[in-house]
């Protein structure tokens, strides 16, 4: 985290996912010397957020019709990756910061993963980092429990004048039904003529992991705020990422 500048946590709820995504994508625009780090947490009704590469699938119009008829409007984000469903029970987090010249992509991912791990630790959970290859939107910085994806991270780099800005975003499944999320993604790719199996058994939620806590997005956010206030969010030096194949995983220990 930027020394001496704990992130300012902004909690927002939107009437559409499009509005939330727009807010997230404009977040870095509010950064400056006086505010070098911002953390946005937002919720919105359900939508399927695509990566740009998804827009070139063979039958996108048919997939759009099918998903919209099922109540899943399609959006496109500017932070890479592939289709990721959001909605009630999922929490969107975006950490925007000014990046020094030697600040790397992995450093940005590590910061947000560290924030999530701090909250996970408060529930007695040790999150794993590494690609969940058979879950939706797989990536090296997937966050999982017992190999089942709990959150996916993506990142966008921008420049404003001499400032390098990076926004690292996470979509965290707090309490959404993995079956619903998996079905949405599988339906999208099947109708787009690019089938990609997505089993709900590859997905997880915090509510499933610690049912005794009855975790909600509001409760998670409170713990996140407590964690930030308590300064328990720095990334440990032992944190590393899995290799490209996702064959190894490493717990983030705080």
């Amino acid at each position, binding site marked *: 985290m930027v020394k001496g500048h704990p992130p300012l946590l902004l909690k927002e709820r939107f009437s559409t996912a499009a509005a939330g995504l727009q807010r997230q994508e404009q977040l870095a625009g509010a950064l400056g010397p006086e505010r070098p780090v911002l953390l946005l947490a937002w919720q919105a009704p359900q939508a399927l957020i695509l990566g740009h*590469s998804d827009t070139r699938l063979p039958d996108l119009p048919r997939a759009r019709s099918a998903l919209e008829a099922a109540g899943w409007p399609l959006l496109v984000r500017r932070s890479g990756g592939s289709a990721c469903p959001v909605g009630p029970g999922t929490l969107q987090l975006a950490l925007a910061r000014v990046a020094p010249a030697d600040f790397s992509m992995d450093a940005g991912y590590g910061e947000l993963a560290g924030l999530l791990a701090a909250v996970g630790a408060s529930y007695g959970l040790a999150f794993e980092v590494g690609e969940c290859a058979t879950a939706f939107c797989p990536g090296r910085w997937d966050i999982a429990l017992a190999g089942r994806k709990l959150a996916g991270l993506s990142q966008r780099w921008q420049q404003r004048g001499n400032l390098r800005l990076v926004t690292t975003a996470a979509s965290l499944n707090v309490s959404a039904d993995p079956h619903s999320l998996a079905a949405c993604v599988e339906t999208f790719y099947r109708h787009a003529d690019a089938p990609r199996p997505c089993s709900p058994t590859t997905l997880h939620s915090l509510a499933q992991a610690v049912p005794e806590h009855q975790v909600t997005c509001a409760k998670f956010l409170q713990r996140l705020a407590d964690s930030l206030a308590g300064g328990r969010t720095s990334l440990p030096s032992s944190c590393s990422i899995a290799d490209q194949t996702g064959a190894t995983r490493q717990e983030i220990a705080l």
Partner: protein
Amino acid sequence: MAKIYFSDEHEWVRVEDDGQAVVGITDYAQQQLGDVVFVELPDEGKDLAKGDEAAVVESVKAASEVYAAVSGTVTEANEALTDTPNLVNESPQGDGWFFKMTLSDESELEALMDEAAYNDFVKGLE
């Protein structure tokens, strides 16, 4: 003989014998990004001022805007990247070039690095 320049934003600009400049991202940049899955390129004829957003490159897990390292007018975009974006990974300074442009102010090249200076710059980041 073509001369190549580098920016601290990990772009390269190769000035060909005919004065055309070819622009792309460096090997370091493509390694940082990982597997490139999408490239949005500027339209032919677009005027770019130094620092303008010129392109967008997306990998499996990150997106980065590519800014014009020098000013000029786009003369050609590498359409091969539309169907084969991983050319950026396979040959960042060859077939993975982004666009060509005519320079409007060649003196802007003086602010860029030569290959040796860029290599030192990258070593300093590691």
